[in-house]
């Protein structure tokens, strides 16, 4: 292999890539615009849905309201977003109307259960609603809010009448206090999303280039042209591999950059609306770890996808063959999401998932350096294994000239499991 010929072929591949719309879209534009566009769509969608829901009046039927609590009805009407519908018949009939969509909530007032504070006039409210409907859920929230506020007023009045404090009448209550800082909340959010998106984006970045440079070449009849270049097969393979990995890294880096740029402008306002305050920042050591992880992911995906795509004779065939790599990579990621565990000696031995966990730890400010080293060694080992496999496959002539008609699995089965003695298949 010569560095000069690798560079010439690599440059040619990159130059071709930037002129192919699908590659630019998947490896450059998608990573950049995914977050801003996605978050913009979320905000727009949420705002639109909220607008629609806010404007809709909730139809509520109140059943069994004690005379002394008629104030609740006035409170409901005073909201202007609740329409109190007169109850007809029994509770069962009201629920039937709810099921038909004629009502949004049935509020039934019941005598207090034995276990509830025995205050004269005390009551229990049962809110019957349809959770599968947004307007019914919203109606429940509205009624619950009104009743809760009334309950507070009523309890306070009763306490004053009994010359005791509001707390005494209530017995005990559970109070929660969030000790997480805005910074910690931001870190939690980043550690959940960033590794997942990074893996997906690096995979997407490699996807089209891996197919384009293998199956795409066969489809365009340039594969044989490439084979007649004075460069060695190893140089050609290396150049193509580096090209695919480069676009994978590019997609990953652009994605992370776009994510941080869009956080302040898009995500923070989004969460503020929901009442949450987040602050997004990363420990500086997380950046080199992320870069390392991105490169490792790109090298892995590039090798795996190129091996699979090289068996295809058309671009379309290649897409079908490479797609399973996505799912295989995502399975451990999805399973590992939401867990608080850090990288362990066992999880560091699982390619792709180990890098995602390593990045997640780094985002949280956890740097388990021996496990980081193990992760990188495992990734390098996996990549080397894939490259050896690619080199071995490339030595089979029928594969090289594109006359082989089958998948990687069939090829491995025939050549290594069944050990077919054939030298080559007719071109």
């Amino acid at each position, binding site marked *: 292999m010569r560095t000069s010929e690798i560079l*010439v*072929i690599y440059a040619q591949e990159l130059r*071709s890539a930037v002129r192919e719309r699908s590659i630019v879209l998947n490896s450059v534009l998608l990573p950049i615009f995914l977050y801003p566009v996605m978050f913009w769509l979320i905000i727009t969608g949420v705002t639109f849905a909220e607008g629609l829901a806010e404007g809709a009046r909730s139809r509520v039927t109140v059943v069994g309201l004690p005379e002394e609590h008629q104030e609740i009805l006035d409170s409901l009407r005073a909201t202007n977003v609740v329409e109190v519908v007169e109850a007809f018949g029994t509770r069962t009939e009201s629920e039937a109307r709810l099921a038909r969509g004629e009502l949004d909530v049935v509020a039934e007032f019941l005598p207090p259960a034995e276990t509830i504070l025995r205050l004269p006039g005390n009551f229990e409210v049962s809110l019957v609603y349809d959770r599968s409907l947004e307007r019914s859920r919203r109606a429940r929230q509205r009624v619950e809010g009104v009743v809760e506020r009334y309950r507070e007023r009523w309890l306070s009045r009763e306490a004053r009448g009994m010359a005791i404090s509001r707390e005494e009448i209530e017995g005990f209550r559970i109070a929660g206090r969030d000790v997480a800082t805005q910074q910690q909340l931001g870190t939690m959010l980043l550690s959940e999303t960033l590794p997942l998106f990074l893996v997906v984006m690096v995979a997407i970045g490699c996807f089209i280039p891996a197919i384009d440079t293998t199956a795409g070449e066969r489809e365009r009849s340039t594969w044989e042209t490439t084979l007649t270049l*004075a460069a060695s097969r190893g140089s050609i393979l290396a150049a193509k591999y580096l090209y695919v990995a480069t676009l994978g890294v590019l997609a990953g880096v652009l994605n992370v950059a776009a994510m941080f740029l869009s956080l302040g402008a898009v995500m923070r306002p989004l969460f503020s609306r929901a009442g949450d305050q987040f602050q997004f920042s990363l420990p500086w050591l997380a950046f080199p770890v992320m870069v390392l992880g991105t490169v490792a992911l790109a090298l892995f995906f590039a090798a795996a996808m190129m091996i699979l795509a090289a068996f295809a004779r058309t671009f379309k065939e290649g897409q079908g063959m490479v797609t399973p790599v996505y799912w295989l990579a995502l399975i451990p990621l999805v399973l590992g999401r939401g867990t608080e565990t850090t990288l362990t000696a066992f999880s560091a031995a699982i390619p792709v998932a180990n890098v995602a966990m390593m990045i997640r730890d780094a985002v949280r400010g956890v740097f388990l350096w021996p496990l980081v080293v193990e992760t990188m060694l495992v990734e390098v080992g996996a990549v080397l294994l894939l490259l050896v496999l690619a080199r071995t496959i490339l030595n089979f002539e029928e594969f090289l000239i594109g006359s082989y008609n089958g998948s990687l699995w069939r090829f491995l089965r025939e050549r290594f499991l069944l050990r077919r003695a054939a*030298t080559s298949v007719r071109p």
Partner: protein
Amino acid sequence: MAFLAGTIPAAPRRDFRPPVSASPLSTSGAAVWVEGLTKTFYDESRGEVHAVDGVNFQCRPGEIFGLLGANGAGKTTTMRMLSTILRPSAGTARLMGHDVVAEPEEVRANLGFYSASTALYPRLTARETLEFFARVNRYPPELVAGRVGELVHRFGLAEFQNARVEKLSSGMKQKVSIARTVVHDPPVLIFDEPTVGLDVINALEMQEVIREIRDEGKAIIFSTHIMSEAEKLCDTIAIIHAGHILASGSLEDHRRATGKYYLEDIFVYYVRDGGALPVGRSDAGGAAPGADGPTGDLPPSEG
């Protein structure tokens, strides 16, 4: 309209030592030397198939060596072995002294390979294409720009040199293809059925280019199944059938040996009628025809 504005410029050999190693030619002076070349394939329905079986030939500088055969005769397989795309099952082939198995990169650096199945990279411009092939095929980097400029001018590509190949007409693509084949000034060129799919005018222009390249002293291996092309172009014609070279020699040799005038008849004589005896070139594969071959079809008078 002439295909070329002038003859194809040779590299300025006086001023530099070509990067392609100038290994000595074989003792016979052949640029291409093939002996016992064999390729065996495995076919699921037929088992082992000898696509090329013990082929021998030589091609000297300034010679067009034609492989004439029907589809499936073994022409393309032979060409692919010479260009190191395929590995021979047995036998030897050397280009400019380099063995196709032991020194494949050196062989390819000394070779320009043109065939219908070697398309151009569609997203590169014509100029970028030529620059890429020159660089990757080890043409001296400092001379690439000059060489590309010459070929752009000679092939009339100036107006389209910055257009992407995918946007060029088929005629322009053909010109770029030939230019990329010769851009690194290889001493040996292989043209594998180069006129397949071309219209008459483009096919004639292609023949003219090949003749000009031959006149520059290049060794050319040319495969075709079109008799008229072989008649007009080839200095030596080898008739290949079922992986064997049945006869090899100049058109005159074949005429004398078979007593037939037209190459078509000569071809049929060997392939279908099982022509008796071999042509008399000592390095040819198969047997040489004797002077006492059939004379049933008298040749028309020449001229």
